[in-house]
């Protein structure tokens, strides 16, 4: 599919927004990153990376296109409809340049206000974002305390008309280039987990003599980013900056993370798409030993595996984002799985591709503006920021005992599974009040797996599937069901382990749990998505190999009995998607092709 050019001066209209999926619409507006001369091109990404300068022009152009509206709820004048759609937008931005995407997407911190802010705070923020190109930073971390939020030294002392804030936050994305700062500070040192309060600070209302910015920190990747800090010195912050009540800071912060951690996965999916695409272009045009490199079995296998990894990650991400609308009570589990699994899986995938890229993948000015070396530097930040890999695995393992004991009743579960895993079905409105710090209703992806396996075995599928493929998928499903049961039995009677001194093996168990969830997500999504146009996805031909990869990398099974050693079908699909200009994803949505005229 080819898009006609879009007029730069004509931002997204309501009519076009309704008639076209957002991913496609955004691609249409942003053009082909392989064509230089515009701010969402690889050439521009290379320029800001090399100069280590903030992508002001690119960010401005995204506001001109009014993409900020997808972060703001409809009742406040925005166009947010679902996290699935927002995730699609972030993936579209991220496949062009992570620096720009991460800088623009700090807008997702606005959900802190949409969730817990007052009516006046919501009105202010909506206006700030929609009409003033407003952006925000999240000032939680401190130099000597890392992810230990309760250990922070920043204090907010109550005074008659507000608070006096003192302390330093670092490293903070967009600490300098932002107008609003979400600040976590101690309001009552003696109150334990209630010591922290959250403030939405409008920097324009502060006395400039009372706060200052710390210099940009030079970084390995995302080199154009504003990774800096902010220092407050007896800085007066008005009372109306407080979000929720004093002492609610940690609780709001943890619920906010549930949203933003899941929304980090599309950063990785976009980066993964670009790493695979630029590698495919390289090996398709290169001849060695009288043969095109793409046809050499090792290379073909690596590309095929990378594509399957992306499909697995897409299943995990898309179902995880849909879960916000179907089972928000369970999101403490889903979000941690998504944030652990997807960024690390994509990082590993890119590392494996680097073998195929060889020296070209190490050069900053070769093959498609040095895109591969930029992505391999940029992508690993996703598993670090916004709750690191260890933080997410820890959040999961603390819940294992209860997850093994509790689950939703069967009728609810069947309904939930359809809502989550039929990727074509509409989603319900998101209700932030249903988020919880711990799941009381288990994890539908694992608890409901037996139901989906029965569907598969009874062939009550919404699409046709070949007998041989089905046999392999059933074998995969049956082994997965056994592994899920083993995990459940182990933790149903497990003892409580407190604190941050969990044994190292516990983290390995949490990693396995993420593998179980990912494998289940693939099978659920395949078995319950019917009307999809992507014939390759519904054929199931990729599923046995997806299962093999997950069992090998997460569950410690070197060999499984169901894998299909042929990768030709997968490689053929990968090449078809690229030739037709489509995303390497389940939906395979069309990519932008026009030459943009943006500066």
């Amino acid at each position, binding site marked *: 599919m080819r898009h006609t050019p879009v007029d730069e001066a004509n931002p997204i209209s309501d009519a076009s927004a309704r008639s076209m999926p957002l991913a496609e619409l955004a691609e249409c507006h942003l053009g082909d990153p392989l064509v230089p001369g515009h701010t969402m091109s690889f050439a521009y990404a290379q320029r800001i990376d090399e100069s280590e300068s903030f992508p002001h022009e690119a960010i401005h152009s995204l506001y001109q296109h009014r993409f900020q509206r997808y972060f703001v709820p409809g009742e406040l004048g925005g166009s947010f409809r679902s996290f699935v759609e927002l995730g699609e937008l972030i993936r579209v931005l991220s496949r062009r340049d992570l620096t720009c995407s991460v800088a623009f997407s700090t807008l997702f911190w606005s959900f802190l206000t949409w969730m817990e802010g007052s009516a006046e705070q919501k009105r202010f923020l909506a206006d700030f974002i929609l009409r003033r190109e407003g952006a925000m930073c999240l000032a939680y971390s401190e130099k000597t305390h890392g992810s230990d939020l*309760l250990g922070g030294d920043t204090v907010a002392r109550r005074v008659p008309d507000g608070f006096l804030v003192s302390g330093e936050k670092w490293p903070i994305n967009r600490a300098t280039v932002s107008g609003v700062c979400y600040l976590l500070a101690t309001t009552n040192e003696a109150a*334990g*987990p*209630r010591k922290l309060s959250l403030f939405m600070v409008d920097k324009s209302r502060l006395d400039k003599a009372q706060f200052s910015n710390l210099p940009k920190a030079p970084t390995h990747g995302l080199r154009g980013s504003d990774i800096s800090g902010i220092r407050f010195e007896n800085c007066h912050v008005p009372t109306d900056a407080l979000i929720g009540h004093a002492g609610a800071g*940690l*609780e709001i912060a943890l619920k906010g993370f549930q949203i933003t951690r899941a929304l980090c996965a599309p950063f990785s999916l976009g980066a993964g798409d670009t790493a695979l695409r630029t590698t495919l272009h390289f090996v398709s045009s290169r001849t060695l030993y009288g043969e095109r490199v793409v046809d050499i079995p090792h290379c073909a296998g690596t590309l095929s595996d990378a594509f399957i990894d992306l499909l697995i990650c897409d299943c995990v991400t898309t179902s995880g984002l849909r879960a916000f609308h179907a089972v928000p009570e369970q999101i403490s589990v889903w979000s941690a799985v998504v944030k652990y699994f997807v960024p690390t899986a994509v990082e590993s995938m890119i590392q494996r591709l680097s073998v195929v890229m060889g020296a070209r993948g190490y050069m900053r000015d070769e093959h498609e503006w040095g895109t591969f070396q930029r992505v391999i530097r940029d992508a690993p930040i996703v598993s670090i920021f916004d709750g690191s890999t260890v933080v997410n695995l*820890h*959040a999961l393992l*603390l*819940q294992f*005992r*209860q997850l093994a*004991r*509790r689950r939703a009743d069967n009728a609810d579960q069947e309904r939930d599974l359809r809502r989550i895993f039929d990727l074509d079905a509409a989603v319900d409105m998101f209700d932030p009040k249903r988020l*919880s*710090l*711990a799941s*009381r209703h288990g994890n539908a992806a694992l608890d409901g797996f037996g139901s989906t396996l029965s569907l598969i075995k009874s062939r009550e599928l919404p699409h046709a599937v070949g007998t041989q493929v089905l046999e392999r998928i059933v074998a995969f499903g049956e082994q997965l069901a056994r592994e899920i049961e083993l995990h459940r039995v182990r933790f149903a009677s497990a*003892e*409580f382990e*407190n*604190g*941050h*001194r969990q044994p190292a093996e516990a983290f390995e168990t949490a990693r396995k749990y993420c593998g179980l969830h990912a494998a289940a997500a693939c099978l659920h999504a395949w078995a319950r998505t019917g009307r999809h146009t992507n014939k390759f996805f519904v054929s199931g031909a990729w599923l046995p190999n997806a299962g093999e990869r997950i069992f090998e990398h997460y569950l410690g099974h070197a060999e499984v009995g169901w894998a299909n050693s042929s990768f030709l079908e997968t490689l053929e699909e990968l090449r078809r998607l690229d030739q037709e200009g489509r995303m390497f994803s389940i939906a395979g949505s069309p990519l932008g092709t026009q030459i943009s005229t943006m500066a």
Partner: protein
Amino acid sequence: MNQLRTEEALREWLMDHLSKTLKTPRSHLDADAPFARYGLNSLDGVTLVMDLEEQLGIELPPTLLWDYPTINKCVAHLAAIGSEA
């Protein structure tokens, strides 16, 4: 939560539960000391509330132990809930 309706019964049960959970002799538990003294961090507190819910058969705020951070404060609150039920 019938059998745990009185403050005393609740305290006994919670002391036993914490003693087992924290692998600490009951005699080492101080009913007026903050849970943090026993190495329980904020997320451990949430996990323990889920255990409490299971035992008591009622739904509690996951942040219960943040707001009632000692055995005695927690017991007094649970007893108050029980008497209202």
